[in-house]
């Protein structure tokens, strides 16, 4: 899988896709959506779609994509290679969402939570396939959040297509399992070849599974936290595990919208009515200076 674009810039999102097999533009196709890397505190999350003509579903099943969750990394790589080889009827596309994108979405002033990000990414990929001319008649999706709500939303978005959202869809529908393999292969490769922008001191490549409850991962996070800058962008800052370590190990930072009690009040309302004795009247700076945040320096 050619992830060179991601290796050049792993701070945003990156789309990869196979060429659309000619038959997928002619015959009604079934399309599966799955994800990889939702839970880990390290590395990207990948959304993938995989599609093939309805008439060739049996051929897809014959590739033994059905049991993707039980496969090892090398077995998945092999299966993906096989799908590519027999690519005259199978197409795929995927979006790699960087840990930086996940963090900035979830931590932005206008919150964009992981579920919304996931739904929008899946929707985007389905639309991409349609725009590429794939004749989609059915879509199968592994659920994110409530399956009924998600299904309704996708069905409304794609009225001409039958949408099925189900938990554990990768075990039920081969096309979802195939998407799962694409997603997992992409994530494994992205993590393996991750280009750290930051020059890390005493860098340790052994971060365990990357899952927040893995003691090795937690130890890696504690080792690579920098008091002012926090973590490298390989880390999802929006994960509770990461935040807990920052709260303990990193320096405090206040922002304009911080809720810490540093906001000046305008004075008690009673002060406008009760006599509190003479107030100190000093000359307020001219509005020219006030508007520009300037005042005389009284100390250095």
């Amino acid at each position, binding site marked *: 899988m050619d992830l060179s674009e991601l290796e050049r810039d792993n701070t945003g999102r990156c789309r990869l896709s196979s060429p659309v097999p000619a038959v997928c533009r002619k015959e009604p196709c079934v399309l599966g959506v799955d994800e990889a890397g939702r839970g880990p505190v390290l590395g990207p999350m990948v959304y993938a779609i995989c599609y093939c003509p309805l008439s060739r579903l049996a051929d897809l099943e014959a590739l033994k994509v059905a049991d993707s969750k039980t496969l090892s990394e090398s077995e998945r790589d092999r299966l993906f290679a096989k799908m590519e080889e027999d690519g005259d009827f199978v197409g795929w596309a995927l979006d790699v969402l960087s840990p930086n994108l996940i963090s900035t979405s979830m931590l932005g002033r206008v919150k964009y939570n992981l579920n919304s990000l996931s739904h929008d990414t899946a929707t985007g990929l389905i639309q991409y396939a349609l725009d590429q001319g794939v004749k989609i008649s059915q879509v199968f999706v592994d659920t994110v959040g409530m399956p009924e709500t998600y299904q309704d939303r996708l069905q409304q978005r794609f009225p001409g297509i039958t949408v099925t959202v189900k938990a554990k869809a990768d075990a039920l529908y081969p096309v979802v399992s195939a998407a799962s393999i694409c997603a997992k292969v992409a994530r494994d490769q992205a993590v393996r070849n991750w280009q750290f922008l930051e020059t890390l001191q005493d860098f340790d490549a052994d971060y365990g599974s990357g899952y927040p409850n893995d003691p090795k991962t937690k130890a890696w996070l504690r080792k690579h936290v920098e008091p*002012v800058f926090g973590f490298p962008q390989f880390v999802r800052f929006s994960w509770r595990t990461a935040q807990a370590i920052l709260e303990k190990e990193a320096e405090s930072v*206040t*922002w*304009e919208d*911080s809720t810490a009690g*540093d906001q000046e009040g305008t004075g008690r309302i009673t002060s406008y009515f009760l006599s509190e004795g003479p107030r100190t009247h*000093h*000359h307020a*700076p*001219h*509005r*020219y*200076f006030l*508007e*520009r*945040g*300037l*005042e*005389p*320096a*009284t*100390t*250095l």
Partner: protein
Amino acid sequence: ARQLVFLLPEYLKDASKKMKRGLMFVKLVNPCSGEGAIYLFDMHLQQLFEIKVFKEKHHSWFINQSVQSGGLLHFATPMDPLFVLLHYLVKADKEGKFQPLDQVVVDDIFPNCVLLLKLPELEKLLHHVTEEKGTTYKPLRSGLWLVGRVKQTMAALKTNHVNVSARVQSTAFFSGDQVSSDKEEDYIRYAHGLISDYIPKELSDDLSKY
């Protein structure tokens, strides 16, 4: 060590090289508030600068390989020393007598005020605001110098398209009609207000009446 960030005119960078202690930060009286404020003396060119600080909440600096909390930015801008001298002249004028300068420009709290007496062409400067009798001085009643400063400020405000009107307007928004739509009165009021930041209240009140 705490680090400070200053914006200075480029020619000042030679001042500290040209003589020992070429640049001196001193505390002098703020002629408006009467409290202390930081000024900068260029001892080489004998020029006075006021120090203004840009201060907003929630800022820090990255300075090379360090972080400095506060995010203050200090500006040194040339300031006419007459504003500070006027403070002492007006204070001493309660007695209505002609006095030698070294008896007028005296301050227990801000003793560095004596540096003002070393400024070049001091007599020429004082000519604008005082009556002279030999080597003694008394402040002029006319206030013409201040009127002149207000007019100069008005011209500068127009040239620099500063919004002087009472209506609320974003400083980022600039309309081509800015100058014509702001009334002359607005310029006078604004310029008077700016100059008032540099003079005692009693002078500001007199100037306002004028």
